[in-house]
């Protein structure tokens, strides 16, 4: 058991416990707390990406999620005054429905994971450095890259249109 295995278990435990605290924190119902634990989840997932040698994606994960998406979440949380929301309780039937459906899907996952022979491809080889990904992105995937930039432009125009003061 090498150092990377130990780091994997540390980052995996951090990811899962912080994700659990995002969806149900026993001490606080405040959305700001959820957003802060989402930052921790994202950062420890970037650690998992580094362990998988996906260095470029780890950097993008921290820049885009922790740097942009969470800041957007925090802006909106502070824009909407959510003090009344913090006091609402989780409904019992919601919890029961959630546990039943998640239990069903976890059972399907576990069954598939156990019945699939994964050992045949258990030799880690791929290196996700910036050079390799950049070559692939700008040669083979250049059309999807341009399409996704148009998508970002459409999203920007849509956001400006939606958040105007008097959109009739």
């Amino acid at each position, binding site marked *: 058991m090498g150092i*990377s295995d130990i780091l994997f278990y540390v980052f995996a435990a951090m990811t*899962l416990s912080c994700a659990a605290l995002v969806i149900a924190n026993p001490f606080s119902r405040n959305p700001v707390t959820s957003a802060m634990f989402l930052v921790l989840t994202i950062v420890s*997932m970037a650690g998992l990406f580094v362990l998988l040698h996906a260095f470029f*994606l780890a950097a993008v994960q921290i820049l885009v999620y922790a740097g942009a998406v969470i800041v*957007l979440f925090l802006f909106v949380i502070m824009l909407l005054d959510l003090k009344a929301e913090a006091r609402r309780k989780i409904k019992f039937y919601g919890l029961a429905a959630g546990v039943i459906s998640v239990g069903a899907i976890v059972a399907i*996952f576990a069954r598939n994971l156990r019945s699939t022979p994964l050992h045949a491809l258990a030799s*880690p080889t*791929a290196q996700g450095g910036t050079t390799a*990904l950049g070559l692939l992105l700008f040669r083979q995937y250049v059309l999807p890259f341009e399409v996704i930039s148009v998508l970002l432009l459409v999203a920007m125009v849509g956001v400006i249109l939606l958040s105007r003061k008097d959109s009739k």
Partner: protein
Amino acid sequence: MHAGLEQYLAVSFALFALGLLGVIMRRNLLVIYMSLELMLNAANLALVAFSRFKDNLNGQILVFFIITVAAAEVSVGLALIVALYRRRQSAHVEDLTSMKL
């Protein structure tokens, strides 16, 4: 235990299950959005793990596109939530029942 593909997939499945539980259980629109982000991240982790263990970088390109689409989705969704809050003064799904019969 050695950290192989199965361990990474187990973490990814657990993260997806937590996100799904949050979407079903919580009633605050913003927390539901954060749970959606958790589910997208679980898919990303599975894709990166497969890409590493199958020696195929196309999975990482797909993760790059997923991150971009998720950013666009979050910005549009949060703008919708702000517009909804202006009209209804609530970001809570139980208060948004005007389409109920």
